[in-house]
């Protein structure tokens, strides 16, 4: 991919292109504004089982089952969802399941809702305590490279990798109603 194309890509498209490159076949998600474009791309892809979850912790089981069955899975969630997953993450560590989690941050830059702050402020630390390799993204131009590297560490290395998409990258939540 040349530089002009890379910067022209909207960052969710860059993530999706990496999903295609490494052959992600299952994507578990809870509906989320920050991930909405990526979710749309995955839902439209006939090679991807899009699995809408009632709570993020279901996605941990999904990823484990997919790996058992020989498929690669990615999980999309908001920072609050990380808190919902903590006990379930033990499944990944106990069995060495590869896992790629993409997390849209809330509770940091330009957050209007203080209720997002308690979990948002401990999201990265929680992931690290749970054994995840954690990479934070601030710049759209870094998304392709960092997500690509994370995919390789997860699926070639059999590791648990979290990519944290900062609230500044995602943009301010529109609060108009």
């Amino acid at each position, binding site marked *: 991919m040349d530089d002009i194309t890379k910067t022209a890509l909207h960052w969710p498209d860059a993530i999706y292109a990496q999903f295609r490159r490494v*052959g992600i*076949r*299952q994507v578990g998600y809870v509906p989320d504004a920050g991930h909405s474009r990526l979710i749309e791309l995955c839902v439209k892809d006939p090679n991807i*089982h899009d*699995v*809408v*979850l*009632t*709570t993020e*912790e*279901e*996605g*941990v*089981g*999904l*990823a*484990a*089952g*997919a*790996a*058992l*069955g*020989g*498929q*690669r*899975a990615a999980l999309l969630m908001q920072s609050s969802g990380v808190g919902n997953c903590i*006990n*379930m993450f*033990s*499944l990944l560590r*106990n*069995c*060495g*399941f590869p896992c790629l989690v993409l997390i849209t941050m809330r509770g940091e830059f330009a957050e209007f809702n203080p209720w997002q702050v308690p979990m948002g402020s401990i999201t990265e630390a929680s992931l690290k305590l749970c054994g995840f390799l954690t990479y934070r993204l601030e710049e759209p131009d870094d998304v392709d490279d960092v997500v690509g590297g994370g995919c390789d560490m997860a*699926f070639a290395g059999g590791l648990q990798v979290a990519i944290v998409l900062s609230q500044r990258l995602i943009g301010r939540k529109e609060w108009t109603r």
Partner: protein
Amino acid sequence: MLDRREFVRKLLADRKGLAVVSGLGSPTYDVAAGGDHPLNFYLWGAMGAAAMIGLGLALAQPARRVLVLTGDGEALMGLGSLATVGVKQPGNLVVVVLDNQHYGETGMQPSHTRSGIDLVAVAKACKFVDALHVSEIGAASRVRDLVHHGNGPILVQARISNEAAPRVLPTRDGHAVKLRFMEALSKSSGQSIS
């Protein structure tokens, strides 16, 4: 009421290529007692995840039958996952809940099913193709038939007696169980492990 060991043994008889995920606690011991097998994935934790592991596996292996054997407490903790399964409608997934109406692992405290919370009704509301109660051993062959041939997703709530069975403990090494499972799957389906 069913004897849990006898019922599980009958379900797993002549299992062919059946993949089994067992929920933590007694269902894991029941599946181990029914005969250790490379296509058993035993859970010792991750309470509430059994049906979702079954879903991920069923989606990845659509030509293979997948059985989730779990307890009422484990199923209750993952109640939302029944809705998620209902959305995806995996035709090859069957969930059997061994319901003794109690939390056996923690001292036999009553579970929600003891108060009449009906997992079959929940499964039906979650668009499971079939959901049924069984409580007599004569139903085991019918349930086994559903496990192998029924159009899923199917949930069976099997009322077992709450007598404790002797513990039969499979390995707690999750890496070993996973690798053995994946190797057996790739051998029997001719697919490589990715």
